[in-house]
């Protein structure tokens, strides 16, 4: 018998239809992938399942019984837990306090039993072979990836029968993502149901037993994973055939140096880096996570202290803060790693987010021209096909992939021709990913210079002209031409540094 059966589920927000007719069924002991474009309704669906929002119409059966959770506690009582992205964690609490939040083990006095909490935490981390994680670290000190792992631990701490992972791998580096995929299989083998959302087809292929595809808020198909090809899946997701994900890599780099960096260091994570990024070039930055990639991007953008020399278009510059980086055509713009913490004003509109960095451009005699602003916003929304009811929709209510598009649009509007893209396709659907890669290549052809980091290694391999592999805060190797491959990157990332 199916563990979960959903029929005709619908949900609307004002005039926006998030789900119109979602149908779904899944058994215990399987990994069930949920696929669909950005804004298809996947997150809405799991928010309903996990009790975070209430549905308008349709029915859900769990164990054949009617299920309509009033809140996440009610969902949990029925054995359902969801792993959202970083949002539900509390920055001021430690890792273990977050994991057991509101379910802390108690002493007979009713106070938190710290010893027991530590013991349970270690047991949990051990049982599922978690990547190294100190239980007493304050959450605000963790990286995005580490926070995602804590979120997963928090979900598992509830020992759920149904675990929902909403794009949990998107913030994880390769090794941790692999661990999560293995863990997912292990959980299914234990007889649990794992509902798995990801925009990475390879992951879905690796672990899913069955899959359900959403489009525009409705279920369009459900398949056994081995009975359907990638192409069919993608076609059902986006409603058309996708010829290729990666654009043709026509070299467009010129001899002109857009960004030259010498002896560039930041904190203890980035030491004495030298490289040059040419006009028209997409330069990939790879390596294992935590080897200085983040620091490099942040320091170049002026968001972290740095030493060394930086030249932009041949002129030495000193960039002490992002303001000094965002100086129009000759500046540098960044798509940051943490889209909610660094990229978007969640409680402000799509319009205000898009134009925040360039608002001065819409003023005449000191006063804003709303018309000019709206025109520009409309152009960008159309160009990137941002799915929003109106430009006045709050950015925080967009689907994850559409939030990422807003950040991308915001960066493009700055007109900077040196772009720092830190994981720009995180949470973006396949169709749009292809469009973003194409856009990157188009920009390069127009003379932009792009520094590109991705936590998804194949993206580096297929999109970048050259790949710098970082190791211990240095550039361990720079791969070119046919040397660019996943194995090549991994080898350089792990082996002792050789002269590149």
């Amino acid at each position, binding site marked *: 018998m199916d563990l979960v059966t959903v029929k005709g589920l619908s949900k609307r*927000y004002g005039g926006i239809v998030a789900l119109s007719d979602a149908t779904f069924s899944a058994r215990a002991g399987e990994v069930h992938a949920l696929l669909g474009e950005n804004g298809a309704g996947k*997150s809405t669906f799991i*928010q309903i399942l996990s009790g*975070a929002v209430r549905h308008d119409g349709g029915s859900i059966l769990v164990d054949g019984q009617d299920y309509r959770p009033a809140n996440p506690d009610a969902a949990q009582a029925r054995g359902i837990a969801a792993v*959202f*992205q970083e*949002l*539900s964690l509390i920055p001021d609490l430690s890792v273990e306090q977050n994991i057991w939040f509101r379910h802390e083990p108690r002493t007979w006095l009713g106070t938190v039993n710290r010893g027991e909490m530590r013991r349970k935490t270690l047991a949990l981390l051990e049982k599922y072979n978690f990547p190294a994680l100190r239980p007493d670290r304050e959450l605000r000190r963790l990286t995005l990836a580490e926070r995602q792992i804590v979120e997963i631990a928090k979900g598992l701490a509830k020992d759920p029968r149904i675990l929902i992972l*909403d*794009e949990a791998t998107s913030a994880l580096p390769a090794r941790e993502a692999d661990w999560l995929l293995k863990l997912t299989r292990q959980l299914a083998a234990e007889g649990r149901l794992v509902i798995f959302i990801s925009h990475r087809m390879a992951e879905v292929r690796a672990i899913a037993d069955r899959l359900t595809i959403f489009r525009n808020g409705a279920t369009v198909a459900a398949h056994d994973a081995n009975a359907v090809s990638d192409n069919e899946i993608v076609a059902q997701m986006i409603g058309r055939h996708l010829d290729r994900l990666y654009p043709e890599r026509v070299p467009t780099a010129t001899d002109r140096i857009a960004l030259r960096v010498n002896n560039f260091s930041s904190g203890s994570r980035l030491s004495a880096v030298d490289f040059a990024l040419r006009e028209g070039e997409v330069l990939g930055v790879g390596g294992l996570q935590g080897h200085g990639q983040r620091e490099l991007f942040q320091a170049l*953008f002026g*968001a972290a202290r740095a030493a060394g020399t930086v030249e932009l278009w041949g002129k030495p510059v000193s960039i002490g*803060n*992002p*303001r000094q*980086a*965002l100086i129009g055509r000759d500046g540098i713009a*960044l798509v*940051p790693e943490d889209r909610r*913490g*660094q*990229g*978007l*004003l*969640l*409680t*402000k509109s799509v319009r*205000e987010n898009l*134009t*925040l*960095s360039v*608002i*001065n451009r819409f*003023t005449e005699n*000191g*006063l*804003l021209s709303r018309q000019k602003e709206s025109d520009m916003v409309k152009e960008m929304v159309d160009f990137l096909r941002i799915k929003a009811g109106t430009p*006045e929709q*709050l950015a*925080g*209510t*967009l*689907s*994850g992939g559409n*939030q990422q598009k807003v950040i991308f649009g*915001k960066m493009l509007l*700055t007109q900077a021709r040196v772009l720092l893209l830190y994981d720009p396709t995180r*949470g973006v659907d396949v169709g749009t990913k292809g469009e973003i890669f194409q856009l990157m290549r188009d920009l390069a052809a127009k003379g932009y210079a792009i520094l590109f980091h991705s936590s998804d290694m194949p993206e580096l391999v297929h999109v970048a002209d050259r790949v710098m592999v970082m190791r211990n805060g240095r550039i361990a190797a720079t791969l070119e031409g046919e040397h660019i491959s996943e194995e090549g990157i991994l080898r350089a990332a792990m082996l002792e540094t050789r002269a590149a």
Partner: protein
Amino acid sequence: MSAFLTRNRLIVLAYAGMVVLLLVTALFSPGFLSVSNMRSTVVLAAFVGIVALGQTFVIIGGGIDLSVPWVLNSAAIIMALLCGGQDLPLIWVMPLLLAGGAVIGLVNGVGVARFGVPPIIMTLATNVILQGLILVLTGGSPTPSAPALIQFLSVGRIGGFPVIALIWLALTLVATLLLSKAAFGRHLYALGTSATVAEFSGVPTARTTILTYVASGLTAAFAGMLLTGYSGQAYLGMGDAYLFTSIAAVAIGGASILGGSGHYLGTVAGAMVLTILTGLLPALNLSSGALLIVYGAVILLTVSIGSEAFAGLGGRLRRN
């Protein structure tokens, strides 16, 4: 239009509250809606409104200014001392004291933005220091009466309209332009919503923060001088009430005390609500103690309505 209403729900609510309160007060004392009474209500509200202007900016930016009372006091007392009841010195005294208020704001702003001192501590400290300075300066002795020109500004009329109401109107226009029509406004809302995102977006966060405190210093000093005209004299402690009322007016006006939202137009309604409440007092035969209780209750009520709306929003924010 409906988009405007949902976007500015809390501000609309503040005006609705003001109207309801007016009608209720009129029920208890039928003379309340008379022209002369409305006029004096607006005059009193103007003082609150002017002090609350700077406070609105500070709060939208995510801070708070507790130095308002003694900036106001200092400006009032020093003006009275320097002018000695004469109009002429005002031509240099007024600019001087406005500059003084701006400098205090600058100190507050630099402390907060550059040295990372929490706004509560920073502004509380300047408040106490100013208090000490003034006590040293005056030895607590009474000051001469206010110059006639200042009295004209605060109680005079032009064509039947109180001068100060016209000043308030002009300031409201300026504040509205700054918040809704200038880049500064966008930067300010961004800063109050998330300082990190603002910084990453190239917003001049430090400068914007400092400007809000400078504005608050300016408006508090200006209000202090006007208030001297209203009461005919400057005295120690005349600014005390304005700490609470300036913050309360902003909160009633629909701003989140955590920053990032609100508008001066809301604060205007907030200042009116607070002043009408004060007018309700004699009508209901309430003691001044009771007034404080009502005051406090109203703040609690409005702020909790505000945060309810805020929580609703938070719940709707996505967890992808």
